[in-house]
Each structure stands twice: as C-alpha cells, then as structure tokens.
C-alpha cells in the first residue's frame, strides 16, 4: 500500500541534481581540420569512443569510432574530420536536471553528450552514463556521511545536557476528543527520551504514565498542554487542561472508578485505571482540580532512584 508511493533516493536525486554537477569538465576535443588518422591515436590512447569537434572554440560536430570505421570501409587511407563528423549534434545544458539527461540517453542511444554552458553558449563538458552513475553514488555517499555526523552530534549534545546538570523542558499540545491522534504525544516523548539514553525501565514508566495522562486529557477535556522537564535526577511531567475538572479526586484515584461514556468504553478506555496506573508508575504524583476550571496533574519518575524508594511497589 505504502510501497507504491515510495520514491527512492535515486529518483529524487535525478530530479535534484544537474548535468553540470556530474559531467566531466576535462574534455578531449579535435580540431575541425585535423585528420582521421590523428583521431585513431587519440581515441586509443584515451580509451574513449567519441569526441566533440571544435572550430574556434565553437562546437561544430561529433566524431566517433563508427565514423572512423566508415572512413576505413570507404577505403580512404585518410580523410578529414570535417568530412566524417556528424554535424547534427545533440547537446545538453549544464543546468538540465539529470532526469532529462537520462531521457536523452534513452531516446538517442548515444554514448555521450557534449554539455553547453547555458550562459556562455560554449562547450563546458561532456557527460556519459558512467558520469551519471558516479555522480549519484558520490552524492549518496556524501548524504550518508552528513547524516551520520549529524546523528553523532545530536547524541553527544544530549549527553552533554544531561551531564552538565542543566535542565530543559519538552512541551507538547494535546488535542481533545481526537482519538486518532491520541497517544502521539507520549510516543514523541518516549522517542525523545530514548535518544537521550534514559534507561528502558525509567523510559517505560514515564511513557505509560504520560500515555494515561494524555488519554485522560483526550477523553474528558477539550485539550491541554503537556510539559516534561528533564534533569539528571528525574523526569517531571506536568499536564494541564482547562476543564471540566474532577468532582471527587479520592474517588477518581480508586481503581475501577470511571465516568467515561459507553462510547469511550467501547474503545477500551474508561476502565477506571488511568490515574491508578499513573500513581503506580510514578515516584511522586500530585493532582489538583477545580470544577469548571481545569485539572493540573504533576508526576515525576526518578532517574537515579534513592534507597527510600526501594519500598515503593514499582515494577
């Protein structure tokens, strides 16, 4: 399903990259007035099969091995390039996207195209299919290196933040009543914490408590804000919404108590386990609510657990 929409990096690159980026700029040319016998030495030496023909810095034709063979077949011991070259030369501009070059190679079946500088109108280089392949591979290698270096930089910067005892906060908006996007905030937070190298057991407890808090906000309110403060010692999460508020917090904390509608229960929510789950996962939890105004939930999970939490029943 998703596969048909997938565009490979190569497909993307041949639209992005220009002929000028991959062409060879050291072009071997022959003069209009040279002889075909000179050409034979040139082609053999450089191991190429065709060259542009120049007349006073202007491209006037292309001459290839085939032209040379024709010359021999006609039993001419020698003939001039001027007579044998093809004058109808297909060229590309240096500003053409690679995809255009690929199409032209397919259309004409030529081995090479002279490349013209679009501004000056002069010969700027020559391009073969090999140049295109090499250019793409180089570009992908550069991309890969950049990605790797960037990833290393990000990893390191997170480590530094944590070890330097600076605190920072990640903030998210939670959209109320949107069950399709529900859970996204906690997923994002989990992903971010994972990259910071937070231990898996801590990570899971924060993620579950955050998920339950997020679901409460989605199910019962019109939306809210979630902020996670990360310090070397703990991850502290605060979720705030603007209503309707909880009537009886003690009741709400009781496992199994729920005010969820049947529709919400049908989805598997409203089990009356949300707040108890948060309490179970967190080292500290604080819940304040005012009817008609909103609810503020704070909980924290300690990263380096001190001894006095050993008695608490956390899994």
């Amino acid at each position, binding site marked *: 399903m*998703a596969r048909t929409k997938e565009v490979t990096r190569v497909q993307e690159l041949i639209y992005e990259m220009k002929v000028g980026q991959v062409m060879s700029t050291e072009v071997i040319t022959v003069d209009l007035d040279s002889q075909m016998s000179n050409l034979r030495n040139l082609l053999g030496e450089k191991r190429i099969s065709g060259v542009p023909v120049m007349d006073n810095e202007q491209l006037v034709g292309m001459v290839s091995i085939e032209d040379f063979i024709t010359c021999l077949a006609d039993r001419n011991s020698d003939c001039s390039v001027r007579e044998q070259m093809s004058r109808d030369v297909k060229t590309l501009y240096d500003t053409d996207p690679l995809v255009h070059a690929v199409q032209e190679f397919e259309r004409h079946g030529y081995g090479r195209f002279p490349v013209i500088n679009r501004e000056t109108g002069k010969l700027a280089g020559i391009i073969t299919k090999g140049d295109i392949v090499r250019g793409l591979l180089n570009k992908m290698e550069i991309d890969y290196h950049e990605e790797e270096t960037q990833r290393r930089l990000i990893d390191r910067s997170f480590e530094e933040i944590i070890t330097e005892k600076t605190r920072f906060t990640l903030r998210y908006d939670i959209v109320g009543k949107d069950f399709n996007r529900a859970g996204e905030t906690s997923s994002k937070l989990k992903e971010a914490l994972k990259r910071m190298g937070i231990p898996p057991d801590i990570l*899971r407890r924060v993620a*579950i408590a955050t*998920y339950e808090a997020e679901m409460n906000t989605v199910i019962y309110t019109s939306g809210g804000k979630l902020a996670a403060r990360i310090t070397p010692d703990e991850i502290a999460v605060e979720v705030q919404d603007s209503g309707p508020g909880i009537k009886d917090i003690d009741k709400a904390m009781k496992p199994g108590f729920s005010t969820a509608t049947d529709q919400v229960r049908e989805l*598997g929510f409203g089990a009356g386990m949300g707040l108890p789950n948060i309490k179970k996962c967190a080292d500290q939890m604080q819940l304040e609510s005012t009817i008609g105004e909103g609810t503020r939930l704070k909980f924290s999970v300690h990263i380096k657990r001190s001894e006095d939490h050993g008695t608490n029943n956390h899994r």
Partner: protein
Amino acid sequence: MELTTIVETLDLDVKTTEGDFSQEISGVYVSDLLSDVLAHADEDNLWITLQGHPNIIAVASMKDLVGIVLVNGRMPEDETLRKANDEKIPIMTTEMQAFDLAGKLYGLLGKE
C-alpha cells in the same frame, strides 16, 4: 517460541507488512481494556484483543509488546495498520474467539 511459529501453527492472518516475526514471545496477555494492558502486560508479550482502533498501537509500543492478535474476525482499521507498520508492530487476525486462541497458545507455550 518465535512469533512466526505461532502464526504458522495457529494459521493467523498477518495484516501488516512491517515487523519482526523472529521475536521470542515471553507470554500472552488477553484484555480489551487498554489501561489494563498498560498496567499488567509484560514486555515481549503477545496481546489478544477485540480492539482494532489505532490506540492499540500506542499501547503495544509503550509496553514493547511483540504483536497483537485481533480475535473473533475483527479487522484493524486502516489507520491502525498504518501506525502498526510505522511502529513495526505485527497485527494478526483470526476467526477464533479469545478463549479458543488463548487455550491453544497455552498449550503451545506450555510444551516449551
């Protein structure tokens, strides 16, 4: 036991394209209440449920579950499948009811 063995033995219908079927299953958890799964399922559990809406993926991802089996011929929503492929969590379906599937899994895992 690997997930792939379970899928083959019990003839489960695989609905996702991504995911690792060579994962070892630590056990099975049966529940339709998401909070209950969050509270009680263990890491690397296979989850049996009726729920097919997208939030099951978030729950499975939070708990690092190996996969989800929808019973009773229930089908996952399109959005669920999209998220499942993103998170690489396999979703399987079966016509069996939860009791029958759980019973067969109990037998399979008990032999190990």
